[in-house]
């Protein structure tokens, strides 16, 4: 049987990808950021997941205003890297896991989550920056990746509660897959940040710390946060944190926090990162 062994949450700030690609990781501005992920790289090298599900948002790269799916699962065998305007990131294409992805869709739709099936999709920094942070720069990514794209750009975006329940349904879906796979689920984006308008640059360390604490110990407290509170307290792009709740919902109620890293600033954003393990084996 397949099972989810751990969850990883991390910001997916595009400037981190650019710093990596342009070999600026040793610069004083970026050095602490990459240092904060050294332990995480060691951790995931030991965990050796067979598949990663990466919950992220497309930044209007694969999708546009033509079609805005709330939850979309990539079922393709391969996902090319998008050109977001600066040219595609020089990272390997992302290999999918079409069989498990189709199983996920099947299970989730029957569980009343109306998932959009995507068979052709480019992936952007939302998905590739977390892979870079966790895996560095291998010739090929070490395992297949199932992209789960969430609309957090065009309101109305899904509620935190809906995301958390989707996570729970993912957990059920994985547990009913008959191959013996170890799955790590990523929730990406956040933490507090606002990229737009005269209020750009908003950071709320107190909110972020509380969110991280509750993610481990009292996820229900995070699940209840309404859209307006994210917007007001964490900036217009802080809403991405609802994607962390999908990751959290897919884990056991009781988890072990094995690592945490928080750093301000990375470009416009408060960088947050946490690793949670399921303890029941």
């Amino acid at each position: 049987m397949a099972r989810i062994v751990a969850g990883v949450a991390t910001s997916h700030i595009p400037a981190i990808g650019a710093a990596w690609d342009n070999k600026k990781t040793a610069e004083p501005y970026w050095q602490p950021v990459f240092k904060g992920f050294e332990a995480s790289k060691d951790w995931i090298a030991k965990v050796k997941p067979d598949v990663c599900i990466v919950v992220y948002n497309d930044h209007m790269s694969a999708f546009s205003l033509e079609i805005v799916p709330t939850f979309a699962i990539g079922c393709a065998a391969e996902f090319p890297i998008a050109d977001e305007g600066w040219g595609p990131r020089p990272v390997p294409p992302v290999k999918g896991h079409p069989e498990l992805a189709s199983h996920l869709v099947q299970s989730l739709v029957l569980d009343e989550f109306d998932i959009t099936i995507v068979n052709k999709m480019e992936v952007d920094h939302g998905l590739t920056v977390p892979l870079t942070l966790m895996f560095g720069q291998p010739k090929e990514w070490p395992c297949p990746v199932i992209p789960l794209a969430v609309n957090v750009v065009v309101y109305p975006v899904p509620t935190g509660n809906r995301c958390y329940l989707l996570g729970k349904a993912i957990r059920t879906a994985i547990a009913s897959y008959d191959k013996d796979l170890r799955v790590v689920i990523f929730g990406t984006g956040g933490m507090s940040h606002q990229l737009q308008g005269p209020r750009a640059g908003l950071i709320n360390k107190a909110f972020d710390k509380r969110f991280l604490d509750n993610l481990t110990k009292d996820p229900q407290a995070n699940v209840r946060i309404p859209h307006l509170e994210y917007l007001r307290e964490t900036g217009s792009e802080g809403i991405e944190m609802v994607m962390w709740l999908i990751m959290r919902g897919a884990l056991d109620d009781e988890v072990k926090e094995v690592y945490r890293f928080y750093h301000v600033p990375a470009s416009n954003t408060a960088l947050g990162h946490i690793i949670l393990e399921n303890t029941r084996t």
Partner: protein
Amino acid sequence: MSLPKEYDDLPGTVVFDADQARKGYHLNMFCMSLMKAENRAAFKQNERAYLDNWPMTEAQKQAILKRDWNEMLQLGGNIYFTAKIAATDGLSFQQIAAMMTGKTQQEYAEMMLKGGRSPEGNRSKSEWKNRG
């Protein structure tokens, strides 16, 4: 009449909802076209002519030509789309963010290094009344 929008009270922020998305559809789809290198080159060569290929309002076209990043958002643009214009100009997210706040690059970068803009005093339009 649509539902009341509590988020209209947020200062200095445009929430990209269905109304904004409708208003900015063509502006944003123009931005999508800049994901191809040949289109970026064509735009840079003659911006006005390139913009005329999209059924945008004149105000939207002027906001793009003037690189009035805040005005683009007011007129239905969304940051992840307008960032593609920034990319075409060789600008980063942080550079356009600074422009939207009215700060210099250095002032904005320093604000971020000091921990960013506090939510204190920035939660409601009522707190921004005395700003220009």
